[in-house]
């Protein structure tokens, strides 16, 4: 599965303002809402579901990266966005470091396979340090979108 299969380019943000976990999740889900990726009536329910998942253990996987995700019946295909915070957010990450790069993913519950493939793709691609660093340094959404495209074309293979 490619990034292009679920990342909505219009929802990508490189100027996340929020300073804490609930705030940054809200900001990213709102970005998806503005980009038309999710039903506005379901925004609150989606935020709640993502935060509920975080309670079981942070999706901050270290090295400044977090992959908050949930399944939600209101979406009929995988939708996601990428968010970059210039200041970093305390996300209870494994390594205790702040998170600068977020991949947010929402999947329909009836496609567990696709959901796992998307998560797999994200963590596989993020293993490439250069890709990761370039994403964090992105100053505009178009830079992120271009990097994702390059990754989809396997230009960042380790």
């Amino acid at each position, binding site marked *: 599965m490619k990034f292009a299969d679920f990342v909505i380019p219009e929802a990508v943000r490189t100027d996340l303002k929020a300073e804490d976990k609930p705030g940054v999740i809200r900001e990213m889900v709102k970005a998806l809402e503005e980009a038309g990726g999710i039903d506005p*009536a379901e925004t609150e*329910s989606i935020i709640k*579901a*993502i935060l*509920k*998942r975080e*309670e*079981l*253990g942070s999706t901050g996987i270290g090295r400044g990266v977090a992959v908050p*995700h*949930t*399944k*939600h*019946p209101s979406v009929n295909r995988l939708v996601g966005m990428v968010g970059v915070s210039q200041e970093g957010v305390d996300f*209870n990450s494994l390594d205790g470091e702040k998170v600068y790069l977020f991949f947010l993913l929402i999947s329909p*519950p*009836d496609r*567990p396979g696709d959901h*796992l493939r998307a*998560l797999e793709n994200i963590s596989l691609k993020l293993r490439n340090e250069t890709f990761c660093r370039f994403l964090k340094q992105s100053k505009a959404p178009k830079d992120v979108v271009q990097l994702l495209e390059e990754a989809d074309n396997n230009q960042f293979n380790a």
Partner: protein
Amino acid sequence: MRVVVLGAGTVGASIAELLCTHRHEVTVVDHDPECIKRVREELDVRALVGSASQSSVLFQAEVSGADLCLAVTGVDEVNIVAASMAKAMGARRTLARVYSPVFCDLSTFDYQRHFKIDRLLSLEHLSAVELARSIRYPGAMLVEDFARGEVEMQAFALSEEIAALGTPLRELKLPKGVRIGSIHRGEKIWIAGADDQLQLGDHITLIGARDQIDEVKEMFSIQPPPKQRVIIAGGGETGYHLAQLLEGRRFSVSILEWDKARCEFLAAHLPHATVLQTDIRRRQTLEEEQIGRAEVFVACTGDDENNIMACVEARELGAKTCLALINRPDYANVIGKLGIAYAVSPREVIARHVLAFLNTGPVVTRLPLTPDGPIDVLEIEVLPEAPVTQHVLSQAALPPQCLAAAVVRENFAWVPGADDRLQPGDTVVLLADREVFKDIVQAFTPL
């Protein structure tokens, strides 16, 4: 019916006993010969020694022809593996008991679906729901067992002269996702219809998400009860779930827990609760924490005796209502005498859920809405090719004396609207007049 119970610990043995008294044919499996010996002596069941996760043992226990297989050993992973195998080997329904909440979450991995288990039950969560129910709405029914607490049913009296009175319900602008379920006027109680008009003094039930119900209550000028102070003694899994269910504007929750690491976990996960590291067995502690000022005191440590003692002390110090988690059935008799208002027994809670699974056909559970009233709350499984799936709800072949209160799809619950259509695999919660029960079953029975 034929039931296989994997695990003969306290939970397994008591379920086996209950199933026996209901005259079901029970087989019990446990790896501990002592447990099996005890079960053989006390119960009229088949009992065999062996590991629940071994195919040879499951085969001997004849899971292949079982109507229900319950995996209730003390190990989550064994329960999941065993229930999954039993299903694959032919058991009609399987339930697995799990302790860790992560198994019930599907955001990262959907255990229930992957392992093809009919339901993963958390005894601790179910017990917490039971306690929360008795705290939040004494005398009222909740529908929230069905999902992650997302849909509730609450009962109220309309005590103010408001504009909504005398207006047909169809013209009331209720927020999306909230419905009026039943109307209780004088001696009569019925399922609310679009043409009904509310009157002063009516009792109504509202169904919806908690926040949206609060909005409607404001619309109806229903005064919220003053904020209640709830003290929970014991921050284990049950206490934690209970605090989560109560957290919000109507309760101020404090949790007393002895273990320091657990306190840190609780403090990190319950932003609105006060977490205190303290020993509830000491009277001085209870005095210091001003237990006497609590409207509700709940003792839910893992120890019956400590729970009872803490309640007795709390009661003496002035706590208004005391609730306790009590495992041993032998204590039921003394609970009331000691001033404990309500005791929740995890074993009874799980037993009810297990019995609910012994229905035939599409009906999963059937409970009366009020003790003597004519309305039932039905939980029904939507099967492939059921007539009810052929149209959206407003056009579906359902009698008017019933109302879809909630639909649960993939663990998410919501209040359906007229344009929603049921899908195979959904579970639907209906309020229905008992007279139309047969018609409803028919609408849900595949052609």
